[in-house]
């Protein structure tokens, strides 16, 4: 490159460096506390750490042990079921509510806040509320009995085979409103003139939605999927509050597994490897998404 033709004066040179200086603390914090820590955990997953970190490398043995553990396999199976149900139900409910709210409904200003407020609650509060609602002794089952429906059964939360679905239920309650808000914003961004043209072409309402509107909501579907799967993988607070991981291990998820193995069972190496697996799953979903988002925003 040609030699710079100017000696920049002090003010110009300062204005060059100050922005980078200002950004650097945040960048440093991120590099250390996020990427540095990820590397540290990654390293630990290859060591024989127990209660405290050890630095003896043991290759992939933690990972081998991990996938042989019954608890872990239950955890990832549960995650698969949970995530699958959670994402699909939230999407369906969110989409339906959004479409309904979009139909020139009176009282939208009241309904929408009601659908969304659970997002403002802590997962602990949600877990607490649902825990008692679902408790057969004092919750819904009890109420139904008292109202005369003696044979009503709803003890999922205590049932090993069904407890996981209560987690799905509570999680859907918390976040479906948010999915609705996303779809509603997407619906409102659709050009009305396209709809009018389709109506002139003779499309019924059903076809209008199926063939024209819903396909145009692809970005919203994508965003919803990414965010919901991210929330599903991270689910910890809700499970702890609602079922504590139980009954037994019935609602164990990778997040609860990691915590208990690291801090309670003092198997830090295995705990670290489970965290790495969680990270890899999220990376597989988020990185392509973020990359395409950032490229377009340029």
């Amino acid at each position: 490159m040609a030699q710079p033709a100017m000696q920049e004066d002090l003010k110009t040179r300062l204005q060059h460096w100050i922005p980078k200086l200002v950004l650097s603390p945040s960048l440093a914090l991120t590099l250390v506390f996020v990427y540095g820590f990820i590397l540290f955990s990654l390293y630990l997953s290859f060591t024989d750490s127990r209660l405290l970190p050890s630095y003896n490398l043991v290759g992939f043995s933690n990972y081998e042990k991990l996938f042989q553990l019954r608890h872990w396999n239950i955890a990832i199976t549960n995650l698969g079921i949970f995530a699958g149900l959670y994402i699909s139900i939230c999407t369906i409910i969110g989409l339906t509510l959004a479409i309904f709210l979009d139909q020139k409904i009176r009282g939208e200003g009241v309904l929408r806040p009601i659908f969304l407020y659970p997002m403002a609650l802590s997962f602990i509060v949600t877990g607490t509320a649902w825990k008692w609602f679902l408790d057969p002794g004092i919750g819904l089952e009890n109420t139904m009995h008292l109202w005369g429906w003696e044979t009503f059964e709803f003890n999922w939360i205590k049932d090993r085979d069904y407890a996981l679905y209560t987690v799905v239920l509570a999680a859907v309650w918390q976040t479906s409103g948010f999915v609705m808000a996303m779809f509603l914003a997407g619906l409102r961004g659709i050009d009305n003139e396209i709809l009018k043209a389709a109506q002139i072409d003779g499309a019924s309402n059903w076809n209008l939605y199926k063939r024209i509107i819903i396909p145009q909501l692809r970005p919203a579907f994508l965003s919803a999927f990414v965010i919901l799967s991210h929330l599903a993988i991270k689910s910890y607070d809700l499970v702890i509050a609602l079922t504590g991981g139980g009954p037994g291990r019935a609602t164990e998820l990778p997040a609860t597994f990691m915590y208990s193995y690291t801090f309670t069972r003092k198997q830090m190496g295995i705990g670290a490897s489970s965290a790495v697996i969680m990270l890899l799953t999220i990376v597989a979903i988020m990185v392509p998404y973020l990359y395409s988002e950032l490229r377009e925003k340029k």
Partner: protein
Amino acid sequence: MAIASNETAVSNSRFIQVLIYLTLLLFALFYLLPFGIMVLNSVKPLAEITGGNMMSLPVVFTLEPWAKAWSTAQIGVEANGLSPYFWNSIKMVVPAVTISTILGAVNGYVLTKWRFRGDTLIFGLMLFACFIPFQIVLIPMARILGLSGLAGSTPGLVLVHVVYGLGFTTLYFKNYYQVFPTELIRAAQIDGAGFFRIFWRILLPSSGPIIVVSIIWQFTNIWNDFLFGASFADFDSQPMTVALNNLVQSSTGVKEYNVHFAGAIIAALPTLLVYIVAGRYFVRGLMAGSVKG
């Protein structure tokens, strides 16, 4: 609440409209019920709960569970109710929200108005940090907090929340400042204003809305956090959510459901109030972090 309103061109038969209203009302019930029941049962004496129907109105109306939850309930080894933990949460949330918002603002400013090579990569790194499962940083963070003497302390928690909230606040301010034309900065440069003066005199005064969004979002997330509180706080610095969980999970003695409910509502009140008062900004925050554009 402001989601851009644009009346749809779709029209429905009367029958369908009724069906739609019905469905929406049913769902509204679904969303309100669990919380409503908590409220209802928090003002009943314990006997009514264990002996009665959770959905029935209180025969005896009492605020005693609330008083108990606040000041005398047994949590862990202490019997001071939730109030000390409420203040712990406040002591943690206020600095964390302030610092992460300020940092997010200047970061957004730099990334949009003082571009340089590699800034997109830097932003990508910071953004990705929002999405990691926090389990991956628990172990090293515990070590570092221990080594630096911050373990179990409120400043330690503040640090944790600032670091992991930075990506979101930067995202908000970046998207907001993106819209300000570059010519504004150029005009100010010609007028003689430097980096900080331009920020202070020109961008910041017009930043009201996004500052509110950032504060609300950070407040909600940090107040509601459980994982970091459970991992890095000890009894003195435990936030509200951890204390609530301890209260509710206590397996000894009689389960005082009404106290539990009152406690849960106390824990939920701050963020709920923020939501009711400034819900519009809450939604903006949700949207800014998710939908494209």
